[in-house]
């Protein structure tokens, strides 16, 4: 089929779903609304598959599908078209977005069945998919920004979905405002790039990338990429703008699965991978990216160990895994970063949906201290979650192992990386294994601490089928990117993903030849660390549950600090938010109330007075009116005659 038709259907199908559900947003019909929404995304998925297969059929160096719908802006030298571009990178992304999106829509249909605003929910979800597709497919930074803002909006709408609860509404606002700060940085980055290159079209920018590395910290390209990266930290929840993601758990769980695990938060990494020709020429920015990524991974993992809410654990896990992805792109391993995006989408969405299933069965209880032993009540949920757990802690041959391992290897081996970064990555991997195992133990294994009034049961098919599909993907998803070292050993299995992305991803400059034995050693180290942590965690939480409590008590101040998320939120409130609110209040009082309002009152009184004066002209006496006419006539005639 013609590419422009496929592209149009791909983009417009979720938008049409949004419109249809939008106009009937008051109906509580979950089957119809869910059906429409899921069908819309599924149609997009079919189109993605068709376009992707067309892409596969093309020769490797010409894999692009470019569709221009209309010219959007044409001002002097600034041209932006409403055009969309599928290449190797965005091809993968659209498959993930629409595929995982369909599964999550299906899950939501059952999960939200008792909510009165279910149609509104599906409208928002479809709008989100539409905007996310614009983000990944836009061929200009400005089009991408449209999608960027759009997903921020949908995120706000969906996080604060139950807005009648003040805290939930506040969480939505927090997400939006933090995102906005990032968006401001993104805009600045776009301005700098435009003034440097004269265009915002991504392919043109990539083509105009310099061939020599820019070493200055104040160089235009470095500043541009730095600002873009700050924008990415807002969207993808890195330090310093990650604070919204744990609060975002206030929204419905499928929202967390879709937006805050699989798609929106990966937008930052996607943007960097797309623009890799210019990022790779600014090593200073890359250094900052790698450091922030590693630090975020570490910090979030440490907080994740202490949390008691199942969704918060997964949220911090997401922040931590995003840190890994940024670490990857920071050392130049763009392909590895994208690979981890894909595998993370599978297993994190799986785990979020699994937690949704658990919460549903526990009648909206989210505290894992009140769970335990759910394995025998919810077998499908348990076994799919189990596969996701294996994937995230990095056990071969599951998906997470291959992607995470490649990141760790390249953070050690790349000339832009450093052994310290690798070490931080390994420690975070250890912590990841620890808290994920802790989650499994406290939720599914061990003694049951479920209160007597709650009778957990397995979720219906519409919820378990997506879980099963995602579990299968978590198992096999990693096999398309098997690194060379393993592939060679086990009989020439090629690194499909690496080959697929090679035409559009610049290789790491000055990459030395890989020392296989070193690679095996590092792989073994990280695998060992992860396994040992998992085992320790199992011992703590299932075999001897009193040990963690004792450890926490013995390091109480440190524990309290970590449990309170390092008091980052409190810091932000004290230093930024409260002063701003105070200043705003003063400005409101002194300028708006005292000054501007007074001006309007004075004006109004003047006009009233004037009106009173002119009112006295209306005497009601017709002859007086005729006199006015005569006077007017006299004046007019005298003016004419004098002229």
């Amino acid at each position, binding site marked *: 089929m013609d590419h422009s038709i496929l592209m149009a259907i791909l983009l417009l199908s979720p938008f049409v779903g949004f419109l249809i559900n939008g106009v009937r947003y008051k109906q509580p019909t979950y089957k119809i609304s869910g059906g429409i929404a899921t069908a819309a995304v599924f149609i997009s998925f079919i189109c993605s598959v068709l376009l992707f297969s067309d892409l596969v059929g093309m020769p490797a160096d010409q894999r692009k599908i470019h569709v221009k719908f209309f010219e959007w802006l044409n001002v002097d030298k600034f041209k932006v078209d409403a055009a969309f571009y599928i290449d190797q990178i965005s091809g993968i992304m659209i498959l993930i977005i629409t595929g995982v999106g369909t599964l999550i829509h299906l899950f939501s249909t059952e999960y939200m069945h008792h909510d009165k605003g279910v149609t509104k929910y599906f409208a928002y979800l479809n709008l989100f998919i539409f905007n996310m597709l614009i983000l990944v497919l836009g061929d200009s930074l400005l089009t991408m920004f449209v999608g960027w803002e759009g997903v921020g909006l949908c995120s706000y709408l969906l996080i604060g979905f139950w807005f009648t609860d003040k805290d939930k509404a506040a969480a939505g606002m927090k997400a939006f405002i933090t995102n906005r700060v990032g968006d401001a940085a993104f805009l600045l980055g776009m301005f700098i790039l435009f003034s440097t290159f004269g265009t915002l079209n991504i392919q043109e920018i990539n083509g105009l990338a310099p061939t020599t590395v820019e070493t200055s910290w104040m160089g235009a390209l470095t500043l541009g990429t730095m600002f873009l990266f700050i924008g990415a930290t807002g969207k993808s929840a890195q330090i310093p703008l990650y604070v919204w993601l744990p609060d975002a758990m206030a929204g419905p769980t499928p929202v967390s699965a879709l937006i805050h695990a699989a798609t929106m938060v990966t937008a930052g990494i996607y943007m960097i991978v797309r623009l890799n020709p210019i990022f790779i020429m600014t090593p200073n920015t890359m250094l900052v990216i790698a450091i922030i990524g590693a630090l975020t991974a570490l910090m979030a993992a440490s907080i994740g160990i202490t949390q008691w809410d199942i969704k918060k654990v997964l949220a911090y896990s997401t922040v931590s895994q995003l840190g890994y992805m940024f670490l990857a792109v920071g050392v130049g391993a763009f392909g590895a970063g994208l690979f981890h995006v894909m595998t993370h989408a599978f297993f994190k969405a799986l785990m979020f949906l699994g937690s949704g299933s658990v919460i549903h069965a526990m009648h909206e209880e989210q505290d894992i201290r009140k769970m335990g032993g759910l394995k025998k009540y919810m077998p499908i949920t348990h076994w799919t979650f189990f596969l996701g757990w294996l994937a995230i802690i990095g056990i071969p041959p599951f998906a997470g192992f291959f992607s995470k391992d490649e990141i760790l290897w390249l953070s050690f081996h790349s000339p832009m990386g450093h052994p310290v970064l690798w070490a931080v990555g390994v420690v975070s991997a250890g912590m990841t294994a620890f808290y994920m195992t802790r989650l499994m133990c406290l939720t599914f294994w061990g003694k049951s601490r479920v209160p007597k009034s709650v009778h957990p049961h397995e979720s219906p098919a519409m919820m378990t089928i997506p879980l099963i599909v995602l579990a299968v993907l978590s198992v096999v998803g990693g096999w398309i990117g098997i690194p060379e070292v393993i592939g060679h050993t086990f009989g020439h299995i090629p690194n499909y993903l690496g080959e697929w992305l090679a035409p559009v991803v610049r290789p790491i400059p000055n990459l030395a030849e890989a020392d296989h034995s070193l690679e095996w050693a590092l792989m073994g180290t990280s695998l060992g660390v992860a396994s040992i942590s998992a085992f320790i965690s199992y011992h703590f939480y299932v075999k001897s549950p009193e040990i963690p409590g004792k450890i926490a008590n013995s390091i109480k101040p440190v524990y309290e600090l970590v449990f309170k998320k390092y008091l980052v939120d409190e810091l932000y409130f004290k230093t930024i938010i409260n002063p701003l609110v105070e200043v705003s209040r003063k400005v409101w009082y002194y300028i708006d109330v005292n000054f501007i309002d007074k001006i309007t009152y004075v004006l109004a009184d003047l006009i009233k007075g004037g009106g009173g004066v002119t009112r006295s002209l209306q005497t009601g006496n017709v*002859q007086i009116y005729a*006199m006015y006419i*005569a*006077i007017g*006539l*006299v004046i007019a*005639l*005298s003016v*004419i*005659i004098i002229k």
Partner: protein
Amino acid sequence: MTPDVFLFWFLALLIIGSGLAVLLFTNPIYSALSLAMTMVGVAAIFITLHAYFIAGVQLIVYAGAVMVLFVMVLMLFDIKAEIQAFSSGKISGAIKLISVGLLSGLIVGGIIMGQKSFVGELSKDAVQVAEAQKVKKSTSPDAATKELGMVLFSKHIFGFEALGVLLTVIAVGTVALARSRGGTHHAK
């Protein structure tokens, strides 16, 4: 002094005099009669201007119908004399008189100022042309009326028909307005 000139001045004084009389008499019946006199004078002026048909219409319509109407209505009201004929208010009255005077002065001044450029020549030309074309455009009553009729019924036929409609509407409206039960309200 030629008859035309004498006629003009006589009629001019007659018209202005009776116009002032309309203004100044306190008894409204006297005002009405003065108005009738003015109308007749105006009809005579029309005749001096060779507009014979219009003069006839003036007499029939204005002096004959409209004035009769006025007098009839006045008789209906049965007012013998005005308690107060003129509007009160010295200041407003003064302003009115002054403005009216100024207006007349301005108009006359404007006319006289324009005379050199336009009207003076035109009057001489008109007389010459009229004399030259005495054969073609004669100013006899029949020829003038015939010419008027030709133009009226060819160029201005639409206005003529519209006027007919207007008169019908007026007739109906007036009857509706003045019905004994007070206009267009239905009877109880």
